[in-house]
Each structure stands twice: as C-alpha cells, then as structure tokens.
C-alpha cells in the first residue's frame, strides 16, 4: 500500500483502519499528518451537516401521518392532549408576539438565514428576469425596473406562507430582502440579532425586511430599504 492508496482509502472511509493502513501510518509521518488533518475535517463536517431541525420537522411522525390516517381511530386522550398543547402553544406564541412582535420577527428572519448560506455571496450575476418574476408572482409581488440588483431569488416557506427571499448587491456587500405581505408592523425598526442588522419597515401590504451582516451603518441599510420599498408592487 503506497501513500496514494492510503490517502484514497482515508478520503473515502476516514474511520476505517485495515492492518495494512495502520502499519503504513505508523511508518509514514506525512500520511499520519494527512490522517490527522482529515480527522479534524471530519469532526467539523459532521457539525456542518447537522443543520438545525425546525420545530415542524421535529414533531412526532403521527402529526404528519395522522392526518392521512384520519382521526377516527386516534385515542381521544391524544386528541385532547394535542389540542391542549396546541392551544397552549398558540397562546404562548400570541403572548410573545404581542409583547415583542418585531423582535420575534427578526429572530425568525435570522433563523431562516441559517438555511440558505449560499445566497449571501457577492455576485455580479443577476437572477434571470423570468425566474425572479416567478418567485415574486407566487406571493403576489412585483418589482419595478429600478430596484436594486438582485443576485438571488427564492420562494421560501416563512411563518406559514411562501414569501420572496431576495439578495441584493450593494456597495456594503450583499443584503437579504424578505418581502412579507402577511406580516404587520406599525413602525420601522432596526434590530441587531445573531450577527445581523435587521431593518423591518411597514409596506403598503405587510412589511419589508432587509438584513445586513456585520457593522453596516444604519443609514446605508435605510438607503437600500427605501429603494426596495419604492420598487416593490403588491399585485396579489
């Protein structure tokens, strides 16, 4: 077994050690260092793959399958327990929302960001107009031609609705724009949450949120918010 064989074996199955491979590692310091580096990568790889599981996906399987299976055979106590827990959760959620509506919205927006890290990159490539229009149309929204340069557009499931998730390129780097026709905010707000500056403003229908990473000046975010707000048309 030569060094190339060893590295191919380690790269394919880092956890596997045959006697031949172990013997080679004991004698070859370069391959031993390679194995150690790979082991470090492996630990990080596992953490990277373990993305957070949203509450909806973590709930019991019966919550998904039970709907198709019908409720007739479900034990009554389970229905009552489920109803009580849902009512409790709804009350708690409503209470939190009424106390901290913008903070709760900002937290949900930042959590959503964790699932699309590939979107927030500098880019000079605009989203194809047809693709952008399709994403916007799904939520009853359109963008005027003078909108900021959009490099990413996806229709995302957010708090019970599909909403446009856009990334616009600015001199301060990429900023995320979420158009939220179903959200209501009374006044504009700027919040710092999870490494983001989140600006949420009321719109003609609902709200618009812009998220910038790092210490971007509020005035620079306001400029983008103003341009986006002026360009958004609610058609639905």
């Amino acid at each position, binding site marked *: 077994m030569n060094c*190339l064989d060893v*590295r*191919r074996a380690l*790269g*394919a*199955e*880092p956890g596997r050690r045959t006697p031949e491979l172990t013997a080679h590692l004991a004698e070859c310091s370069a391959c031993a260092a390679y194995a150690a580096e*790979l082991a470090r*990568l492996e630990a*990080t*790889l*596992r*953490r*990277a*793959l*373990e*993305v*957070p*599981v*949203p509450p*909806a*996906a*973590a709930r*019991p*399987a*019966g919550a*998904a*399958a039970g*709907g*198709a*299976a*019908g409720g*007739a*055979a479900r034990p009554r106590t389970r229905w009552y327990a489920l109803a009580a827990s849902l009512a409790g959760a709804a009350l708690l959620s409503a209470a939190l929302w009424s106390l901290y509506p913008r903070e709760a919205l900002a937290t949900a927006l*930042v959590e959503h960001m*964790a*699932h*699309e*890290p*590939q979107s*927030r*990159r*500098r*880019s000079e490539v605009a*989203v194809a107009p047809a*693709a*952008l229009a*399709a*994403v916007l149309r799904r939520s009853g929204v359109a963008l005027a031609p003078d909108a900021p340069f959009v490099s*990413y*557009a*996806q*229709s*995302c*499931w957010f708090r019970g609705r*599909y909403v446009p998730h856009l990334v616009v390129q600015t001199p301060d*780097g990429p900023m995320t724009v979420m158009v939220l026709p179903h959200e209501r905010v009374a006044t504009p707000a700027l919040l710092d949450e999870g*490494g*983001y500056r989140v600006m949420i403003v009321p719109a003609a229908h609902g709200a618009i949120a812009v998220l910038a990473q*790092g210490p971007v000046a509020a005035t620079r975010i306001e400029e983008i918010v103003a341009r986006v707000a002026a360009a958004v048309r609610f058609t639905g």
Partner: protein
Amino acid sequence: MSESVSTPDQKLRFEAVCGRLRPDLYRFAFWLARDRSVAEDVVQDTLLRAWRSFDSLGDAAAARPWLLTIARREFARRFERKSLETVDVDDLAELEDPALAAENSQEVLDLRAAIFALERDYREPLVLQVLMGYSTEEIATHMELTPGAVLTRLFRARQKLKAAVLGEAEEP
C-alpha cells in the same frame, strides 16, 4: 395501509418506529434539496407515503433506510415537478461572506457553504456516510451504484471540501 384499517396501536407503532427518525429524515432531505421549505415538504410527503405502506416494513430496524429511500424518491418526484418554476441553485459557488450565527463557528459555516456547492452525486453519499452512518455497501444499495463508485465519490467529495475550505489543490 388504508384509513379504514388503521388502529391506535398501528399509529403508536408508526410513531415509535418512524417518529424518532424525523430529524434524520429532515437533514437528509435538506441536504438533497438545499432548501428548508422543500425539505419540510419532502419529510411530510415521505411520512404520508410511509404510513400508507407501513405494513410492508417488516423489520423496524430497517426503518431508516426504508424512509430515506422513500424520501429520495419523493425528492426526485418533486424536483421533476418544480424544476421549471424554481430558481436554479445548481450553479453554486464558494461562499465568500458566511453567516455569523452564534451557535456555529466560522469553520463550520465555511464548510457548510462548501457542502452546498458540492454536486449532488458527491453530497448525497457524504451525508449518508457521515450523518446516517451508512456503510459503503449500504450507500451503494441506496444509490444503485457499485461500492467502488461510492468510494470514488466519497474520496472526491472530501477532496473538493478540503480544496474549498483549506484552499488546497485536489489530489489525483
């Protein structure tokens, strides 16, 4: 399994066998789709299909590969349906400006971005091996490949990740 023959015991058994696997199912679907909302939909559809054919699962120990296989098919079905109406995310590049989520280090975020950019042929066997603990033979069965092809993909996947994160050239 039809609605008329389902019993509370069957539902409890389904929850016991399949419910504990829901996080795995979500993560597998997420890395297939690279999209949270699609992953959640795939999980829902997978569990519904699994419930309808739950009788065909003889051994509870086989539940995970059974569910992941259903999820793979559901994703393929969904991708075929939605490919014309969604934004193309296959042309993903290395992330330049990763998120600063409090619970994750920069290293994790960089690597996550690199995994996002991997082609599905490399991403899927990696997820099955690292997250699901699949053996090479199990991955080969799941992906309908030879074990040799799986080993090659796993090696290349790690090479690509190392190249992306550490800036190293890929080895032959």
